[in-house]
Every structure is written in C-alpha cells, then in structure tokens.
C-alpha cells in the first residue's frame, strides 16, 4: 500500500465520525469608531514611523521619508505621483526585467509599495502582490520599507480585513511593524532579517 493510501486508511479508521457544528459568536465587525486613529496607535506601538497626510501632501511626505535613500525600488504598478517629489534614483521592478536580489540588498536602497488592506485593531498591513505592491521579495530584502495606505483601505478587525481580499490564493504577506524577535528572554526586540525601518503613510481623504 502506498504511504498515501495507508495514511488515509488509518485516518478513516481513527476519526470520530460525528459531525461538529462550528459556532461563530465572535465579532464579525470590530466596531471601533475612528479606524485611522486606531491603526496609527497600533503601528506606533510596534515602532513603525507613521505620517498622516492628505492626498496633496503625499508626494512631499514620501520624499521626506525617503530622503536618506539613494535608490528607491518600486513595483511597476506604483503610481508615478507617489514618487514625483523624490530626487534619487528610481528602479522599477520588471521594467523590463526583475531586479536581482543583489540590487535589492545594496546599501541605501529603500522600497515603496502600497497595500491591499490594513487591520486597524492589530496594526497590520496586508500585501497581496497587487500592481502597486509587486512580488514578495521587494518588501523583504531592502532595509527600509515605505508603505502607502489609503484611509479607505483600513478595516477594523481581522475578519473584516481577510474578507476584503480579492483573491486569497495570491501570495499574501501580513506585516505588523518592523521585523522583530522575541527570542531573547521573551521580549520583543526590533530589527532582524526583514526591513528594520517601516514607515507608513496614511492618506486621509
């Protein structure tokens, strides 16, 4: 018997054949009043930098956050306007080729992306590889990540946020603060393998 058939046979023999009803009494909607304020509070708690601005101020805010970066990597679908105030070199991924990992890892490189949805309650940004986010390596290898969130993308809790994703079979990355570890005496310490600096621009209006 193949391993597959044998394992399935054992599972069939062992499983309790009683149907189980699954209650879902937990909150489907978070109910927080000011989602943007909650998101900002949670992001700050995880040591992200946060800037709130209106749409007119976006390019200036992004340029300011990127002032220390000599090169900015951007996914091909990130709007031109986001970078119109930035003076340094811009590398678009996939135009015409994918950037090499070495390009992403070079000193002074930052990355600018959007996100699919944000979770206010937990301070989480969800990236789903959409055109303004690109492939997963982009928001991973550079040491500095700037992420643009529009207020309309902010959901209350985890259930609302996951339900908003258009296609959950796309590669998904949930990001809550800069990379961190709890491995030394069980305290959270920021700054391990992922970007050590996470800046979030929340665009209101």
């Amino acid at each position, binding site marked *: 018997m193949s391993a597959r058939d044998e394992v399935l046979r054992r*599972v069939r*023999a*062992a*499983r309790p054949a009683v149907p189980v009803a699954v209650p*879902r009494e937990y909150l489907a909607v978070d109910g927080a009043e000011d989602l943007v304020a909650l998101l900002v509070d949670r992001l700050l708690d995880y040591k992200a930098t946060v800037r709130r601005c209106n749409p007119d101020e976006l390019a200036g805010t992004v340029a300011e956050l990127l002032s220390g970066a000599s090169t900015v990597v951007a996914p091909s679908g990130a709007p031109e306007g986001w970078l119109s105030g930035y003076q340094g070199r811009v590398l678009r991924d996939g135009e015409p080729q994918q950037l090499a990992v*070495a390009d992403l890892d070079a000193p002074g490189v930052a990355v600018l992306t959007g996100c699919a949805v944000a979770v206010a309650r937990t*301070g989480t940004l969800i990236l789903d590889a959409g055109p303004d986010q690109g492939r997963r390596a982009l928001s991973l290898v550079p040491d500095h990540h700037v992420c643009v969130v529009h207020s309309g993308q902010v959901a209350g*809790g985890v*259930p609302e946020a996951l339900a908003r994703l258009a296609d959950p079979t796309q590669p998904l990355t949930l990001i809550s603060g800069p990379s*961190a570890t709890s491995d030394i005496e069980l305290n959270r310490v920021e700054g391990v393998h992922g970007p050590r600096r996470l800046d979030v621009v929340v665009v209101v209006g």
Partner: protein
Amino acid sequence: MSGGNIVARRPFPAAAREELGDAQLRANLRKATHTIRDKRLRVVGEVPDWEALRQSGAAIKDDVLSRLPELLEEFEATATAAGATVHWARDAAEACAVVTQLVRDTGATEVVKVKSMATQEIGLNEALEAAGIDAVETDLAELIVQLADDTPSHILVPAIHYNRSQIREIFTRNGLSALTDDPPALAEAARRHLRAKFLSARVGISGANFAVAESGALVVVESEGNGRMCLTLPETLISVVGIEKILPTFRDLEVFLQLLPRSSTGERMNPYTSLWTGVTPGDGPQTVHIVLVDNGRTETLADDVGRQALRCIRCSACLNVCPVYERVGGHAYGSVYPGPIGAILSPQMSGEGANRTLPYASTLCGACYDACPVQINIPEVLVHLRQTGPHPVAERAAMRALSWAMRDRRRYTAALRAARRGAAPVRWVAGRRGTVRHLPWPLSRWTSTRDAPLPAKQTFREWWATERGQA
C-alpha cells in the same frame, strides 16, 4: 508507528531532578515565562470576544478531525492544481527519506530552514546531515541552539533556557561578533551572519502553521523575517506538514490569526505572516513540495479522550503558565514537545518507553487548560492517560506493597504502627506542615516522589476501642 525526536531517553523524574539542580536555568526560565505571562494576559484581556474565539477555534479543529480524510484529499487536490507536489509519509523515517531525496534531486548541499516543530519532530536535520546536506536554522533561537550544539527546550523559543550573556558567549565561540549582550546587538549579529546564506540559498525548508483545504494554501506565522526569506528567495521550497494542520476554509484563518499571536508571543499580531498557494509565476519558489506526515497522529486520533491534543496550534501558552515547566525546563520532557502539551502529546504519539512517565509531570492545577486558545482539557487527558497507561515502576511497587498489607487486617495494623513509629521522631520537625518527606521502607517508595501526610497518632479503630471499649 512513529518515531523521531518525541521519545524520551530517560524517565521524567530522573531528568527533572538533574535539571532542577541548575539554578541559572531556573532563573532564566522564571524570568522569561513571567514576562510572557504578563504580556499574554494583557493582550488577551483587551479582546472582548476571546472566549467566543476559543470556542470557534476548538470547534473548527474538532470539525477538521471528524472530516480529516475528505479534507486531506481536498487539500491534496487544490495544492496540486496550484502547482505544488504533495507527498505522504507514514512516520518520521519516511518523511526524512522523502525530504532528503527531494534535496538531493536539486543538487544542493545546503538548505535554509524556517523554524518548524514538524521537522524537529521527525529529526530532519540529523537525517540531512547524514546525507551530507547542511541544514542551517535561521530562526534566532534555533540558531542559538544549533550553535550551542544543544536541543530546543520550548516550542516557540527553543533557546528560552539561555539569558543574553550566555547567548553572546555562544555567538562569540562560533565567530559571530556581538559588541554587547544587548538584545538588539545580538539580533544584529544574527542578521549579519545569515544574510549571505539567505541570498544564495537554493532550497528552503519550512513547516506550516495551517494548511487550507479549499485553496491549497500554506501559512507560516513568524517574527524575524527569516521565514519570509526562506519562503521567498530559494528556487525550491519543501514544507513538512502534520496531517492535523488542515483548516477547511480561508475564512477559518480569521479565528486562528487572532488566537495564535496573542497566545504565543503575547502580541496583537506577530510581525510577519506568509501565505502561499502552490507556485506563483515570477514570485517566490518555482518548485514547491509539501510532505504530509502522520507519525503517530492517527494513533492519537483514535483515542476518544486523547484526540483533543490534535487541536494544538503550538502556541506554547500552556508551557509558559505551567508551574512544573517553569521549574524543570523543556529538556526534562525528553521530547521536542515539552510542557503540558508534550506530557499528553508525546506519550500518545509514540506510546513508548520513558514517555510513560510524562503524564505524571503535572500537578493537575489546570492553568494550561485556562490558557489554551483551543480549549484542550490537558488535565482531563493527563488523568485519562494515567488511568489507561502503565504506571511507573515506583508507584506500581508501592501500590503492590500497599495492597498486600491491606488484604490482611493484622498486617495492615502492623504497617500503620510501623509508619507511626517511623514518623514519631520527625513529628516535631514537620511541625505545622503536617507532612513528612521520607517514610521508612516500603513506604519510602511513595515518598521518594512526594511528601506524605503524617500518620495519625491513633488509628480510627484504636480511637473507637478507647472510646467504646471494643474493637
């Protein structure tokens, strides 16, 4: 049939006695477990629907166990359709053989690993090493344990038994320089050490926290970004997944992504969670393998009371609140699954040797049950295993002696008198505590592992005789 690193080499009492002698270990454990307890209570306390989430989490897992054959087949079909290759393994040895062959096929001699209980359980690193393949652990705590040539002592934080200065020492011995023993400096040293390995790795190996049947997606929950590196940069990704990790739908994650981070690291959300479904052209590994492992899970599934252990999402909250774990640490349990969950999971999955003492490694205080995000009634399973499993030698001998004495009234009266005589000199030492640490043989068999109450000054029969003049 099962195997791997879940079978203890020594009985728990022997191992525990040795670990208890290490004062530094106890101090480290105490500090870490108390830090995390407070954090967990804080973030759980701010969730108004926590009990409802726990109930749903438990029910979803029970539903999975009752429909497991169908859900496994569904997962296999969806993952395959998404471009992954699904393999099956009956036990640890078979799982190791499958993975080793897959790595060999790529020609790679080094793999980068995301922390995974399943690969520790099956002893994958040892198997790869025997095949001439270097397995590099990339999780900070796993790296510390690997560099120290030690074994993990906690599900989530395998190096919980080391404090910062010990970690720096281990790093320095292995040529990683950290300027100070400040945690950020240690994290920086690990980042520099692993960077080149991530960027050049051709094969990544992971486990999975969840596997979604309806879509074929796998989920890895982590903190440092080492997981994202391993899941994204290599050409080939091999994930080793226990068959109980299945969830029916993507929506079910809305429950577990709330329960898990708050229960494990005491955070509202862990820094990074990755989901991938088979192969995505142009993004991440283009060759994706999934190895579904039984290794004793079906034996556990067959037990009406014990099967609830398979709900476990490996958050480690039960370890962090356990008074026994806090004192003896993870190594005493002799399995990659220590603490309360290990005490019920290891003996059920392996059913072997020294593991039989594990159900006794608990005071039945119930703190683990209260903390468990999927409501596993660990004390209930412990008692069940004590009743069904063979009893440890000492207890069996004590019970035999006791039943011999109790079968005959004269023998019983004589034994009680002997106990009283033996206890008389210590009565004044015991004072108000009213217990005695060491009774004379054969009752010493009993007191070698527990205190006994002092024998009463008079037996009931003697009291009755003096009160009523007849026995």
